[in-house]
């Protein structure tokens, strides 16, 4: 009954979106036609580019436990804004200015009220960022109500657009947590001899969502795997030894975890001390894990783990092949003396989408886009990312899943391990098709093809 209702709701929504989309195409098409007739195509002679810079306000954790994630994002944005402005700005014409940063730690009340103030004063062209999924769920609808463009760059909750399908001032350039969780299912499909799994996820929505999707996905693909125990340590836990010893006692074949940030680093280092990684055959750590974790654990990093998740955000992933990625990593390392983590990559994707979107909008309408036009033009685009094309389905990015194993065999100038033996899982295998609700899809995913 409930599902049916949801589906009806959904088809209704997609029909509306479709209509809206076709209307937009028609308008844009006719506008483009006029522009072409006038022979004004190209970016050089566009009037209407505002004189003042494109003003962005970032929403990030600047205090509290997730602040390190915010710090990576802030670093990356400082670097990227400088680079973009060195080339003249967006489409080479309009510089970007980050006019303010709001601390997410102030809570949703404050964020929403600031959104209102910004919308009203009209001195901000776009807001950008957000780490916390819960904050994104609270702030995005408020920004949309106020018609303040909001580029969501980091949180992973699959509910953002599923709960608010009609937002037209919001886009998200980060893949949803489905990519990580279902990516992990795909990894398990390829493993031999995995019969028992223990999941360890932080005790809030991120952790529970991952556990649910992972478990449901395993079930759907018919893997002969049993999740024997699910553990939810408190967010910000400092002593995991009780969890570690209990898992070691069970010695499951596989350990799955979406712990992230300081939590995963504490968990793994205490796990190493407690002999956890001798007791399990394999571990899949998917909580946006990468360079910072490898840095903090150094030589202690166990070898029988896969790290990764939604997106190829590992500094040495396709480092040699992809020039843009190489430049991003090198420049970041030179500036901040550390390799970029997920917060930095997510922010990078956001700026890529922004540049691409502005260019597309200007090409079509021959004028600087309004906020709504700008956000619309970021829908359904694709741009280069370390993992190849980063594609937007409507306002939502679909990311592939990338996993790798720790190895000391790498060329980057750091003395801690990085990842190698990369496994790439296409976006289509780890994301629902457009218009399908994530949980409905996860319940029915097919075994991986090929």
């Amino acid at each position: 009954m409930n599902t049916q209702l949801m589906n009806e709701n959904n088809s209704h929504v997609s029909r509306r979106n479709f209509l809206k989309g076709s209307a937009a195409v028609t308008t844009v098409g006719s506008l483009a036609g006029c522009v072409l007739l006038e022979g004004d195509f190209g970016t050089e002679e566009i009037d209407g580019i505002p004189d003042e810079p494109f003003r962005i306000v970032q929403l990030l954790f600047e205090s509290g436990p997730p602040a390190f994630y915010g710090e990576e994002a802030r670093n990356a944005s400082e670097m990227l804004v400088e680079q973009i402005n060195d080339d003249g700005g967006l489409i080479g014409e309009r510089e970007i200015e980050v006019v303010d940063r709001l601390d997410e730690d102030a809570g949703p009340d404050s964020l929403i009220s600031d959104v209102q103030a910004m919308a009203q004063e009209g001195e901000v062209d776009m807001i950008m960022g957000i780490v916390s999924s819960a904050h994104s769920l609270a702030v995005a609808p408020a920004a949309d109500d106020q018609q303040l463009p909001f580029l969501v760059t980091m949180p992973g909750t699959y509910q953002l657009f599923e709960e608010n399908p009609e937002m037209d001032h919001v886009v998200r350039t980060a893949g949803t947590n489905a990519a990580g969780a279902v990516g992990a299912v795909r990894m398990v499909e390829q493993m031999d001899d995995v019969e028992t799994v223990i999941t360890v996820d932080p005790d809030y929505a991120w952790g529970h969502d991952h556990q649910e999707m992972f478990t449901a996905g395993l079930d759907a693909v018919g893997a002969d795997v049993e999740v024997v125990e699910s553990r939810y340590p408190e967010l910000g836990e400092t002593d995991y030894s009780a969890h570690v010893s209990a898992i070691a006692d069970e010695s499951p074949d596989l350990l799955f975890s979406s712990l992230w940030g300081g939590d995963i680093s504490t968990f793994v280092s205490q796990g190493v001390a407690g002999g956890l990684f001798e007791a399990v055959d394999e571990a899949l750590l998917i909580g946006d894990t990468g360079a910072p974790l490898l840095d903090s654990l150094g030589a202690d990093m166990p070898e029988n783990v896969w790290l990764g998740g939604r997106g190829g955000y590992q500094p040495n992933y396709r480092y040699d092949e992809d020039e843009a990625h190489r430049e991003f990593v090198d420049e970041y390392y030179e500036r901040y003396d550390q390799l970029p983590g997920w917060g930095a990559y997510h922010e990078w994707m956001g700026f890529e989408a922004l540049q691409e979107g502005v260019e597309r909008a200007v090409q079509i309408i021959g004028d600087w886009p309004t906020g709504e036009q700008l956000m619309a033009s970021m829908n359904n685009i694709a741009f280069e990312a370390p993992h190849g094309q980063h594609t937007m389905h409507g306002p939502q990015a679909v990311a592939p899943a990338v996993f790798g194993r720790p190895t000391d065999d790498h060329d980057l100038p750091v003395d801690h391990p990085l990842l190698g033996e990369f496994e790439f899982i296409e976006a289509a295998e780890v994301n629902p098709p457009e218009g399908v609700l994530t949980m409905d899809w996860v319940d029915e995913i097919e075994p991986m093809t090929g």
Partner: protein
Amino acid sequence: MPIESLMVNTFNGLYFAALLFFASVGLTLVFGILNLLNMAHAAFYGLGAYVAVWTLNNMGDITTSTVVLLAVLVLVIPLVVFVLSAVLDKTVFAPLYEIEPVYQLLATFGVILMLDDVIKFIWGASPITVDGAVDPSRQLGTLDLLGISVSAYRSVVILIAIACAVGLYLMFVKTKLGKISQAMSEDYEMVQMLGINVNRVRIMIFSISVAIAALGGALFVPFATATPAVTLEYVLLSFAVIVIGGLGSLKGVVVAALVIGMVRSFGIAYYPALELAIVFGLMAVVIIFKPEGLFGDEGVVE
């Protein structure tokens, strides 16, 4: 349950109890003897953790000797914090002794907020860990204890906690400072009238208490990560300990730390779903059935 896991969980519980003891014993002493309810007490546990990470990571160039590193954690850091807290007692905390417990609680909550940002200002907001080369918990490795393999470093921490508890007990029953303190906990004004310099005793007790919290933070950090969240977590935990044990009782702190440590360790191992509720549930149950805590009616060392 197999005997090994019983022992491992007991060990984990003991270790956690040791940390809780460090974080909360000073809180109960300062309250019991000086009548100051210092909510910011466990913030010094967090401060100790940050100072320790920073110190250890900067020692890498000088020495990586385990003995020296341990000496820094156990002696140097508490000593530095001891001096710092003597200064704080004369300045920030001095006016607090005169006001109601309710206001003490709120004013010291203000101190927590300030200390939070001081830590952020100095060390940033990212979690920081001790480098492998100067991490005594990695250097010491594991040892076999009655057939189970446990972390040697954590065993040392448990022993230091025991030594600290015994040391405090001896201080109260043997030394002059201890005897005066006990008398103060019973009748502050009487001691004052005897012509004893209560301010000096106050500074000593306050600084020793805070230094023990910092010692706990310093010992905690090689096996964990220093994050801004540590402060608030231990503020709550330390209040749970002293309320369950009974305000102002040394014995209460030891027993309550053991109870929470064990219940949490076994609870997480066998009923992981309860984790978030364990400490608060325990605290609620004890206050409801024994409103003064387990040993609340007794003096400091009875």
